[in-house]
């Protein structure tokens, strides 16, 4: 066991515990806050695994933007502030399938890697990752920007009820 192993185990325990609370807590708002803890722990795992830039992007985009958006949605849909009992369906089928998927994947990956030891590569700094992105992955990068624009326009169209509705009404009438 090296220092990075200990750090990985500790951060992984935090991430798993917080993730479990996200899917089991009876408070909607607390689920969002536990998601912050889980995503932060995963960002720490990225740092241990030498993915520097990815860790900071995770903090910026996930913890900064996605969780805030989710909390906005919680507030705008007027979720109850206290505990609510009707958040979950029957638990055991979901628990069975979730545990099966998790255990199966874990068994597969553990069987593939056993207890082999690897030396960590050079850290993925912004310079190295930028070179990889703009040399090897330029086309996907540009496509992703088009996809973001499409998602932006799509979100606006979906949230404006007056854009598509009148045409449908006219056709129906």
């Amino acid at each position, binding site marked *: 066991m090296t220092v990075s*192993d200990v750090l990985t185990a500790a951060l*992984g325990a935090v991430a*798993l515990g917080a*993730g479990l609370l*996200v*899917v089991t807590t009876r408070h*909607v708002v607390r*689920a*969002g806050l536990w998601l912050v803890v889980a*995503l932060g722990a*995963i960002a720490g*795992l*990225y740092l241990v*695994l030498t*993915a520097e*830039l*990815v860790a900071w*992007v*995770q903090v910026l*985009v*996930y913890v900064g933007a*996605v969780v805030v*958006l*989710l909390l906005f*949605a919680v507030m705008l*849909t007027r*979720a109850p502030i206290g505990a609510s009992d*009707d*958040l979950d*369906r029957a638990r055991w089928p979901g*628990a069975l*399938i*979730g545990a099966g998927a*998790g*255990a199966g*994947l*874990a068994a597969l*990956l*553990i069987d593939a*890697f*056993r207890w*082999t*030891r690897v030396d*960590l*590569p050079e850290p*993925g700094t912004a310079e190295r990752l930028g070179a*990889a*992105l703009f040399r*090897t*992955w330029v086309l*996907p990068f540009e496509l992703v920007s088009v*996809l*973001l624009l499409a*998602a932006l326009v799509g*979100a606006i169209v*979906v949230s404006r*009820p007056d854009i598509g509705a009148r045409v449908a*009404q006219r056709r*129906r*009438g």
Partner: protein
Amino acid sequence: MHPALPFTIAALLFGIGVYGVLVRRNAVLLLMAVELMLNAVNLVFVTADASIRAAVPQAGQSFTLFIIVLAAAEIGVGLALILQLYRLRRTVGVDDLPLSDAVEAPGVEASGDAERAVAAGRTADAQRSGGHAAGDGTGVAG
């Protein structure tokens, strides 16, 4: 560094996400569970990048960045859909959704719901969207 450790964490995190998607009723909580699953996949990519020598350096981390961007786009569209759903039906429970819109197709059922919402006088917002929908409904009827 033993790669089996982060790989196991990622697999278990994915299982937790699957459980959340299957069990949660609230659509916002469902999206949170989907985020957990996406993060588990990202963790697999980053761990593989650190533990397997690939022909293209930093491929796994580049893929992780792409997935983070995709997740941001997904969450934007998903939340727009959820808010629109809440505006129309005053609920975000995925169990309350009809599987087909055959019942609502003539526009009679929807306007009836809206009029009931107005009669109940729940909120100003409900009255605004309900009045709008009711007006459209009477327009169709006329």
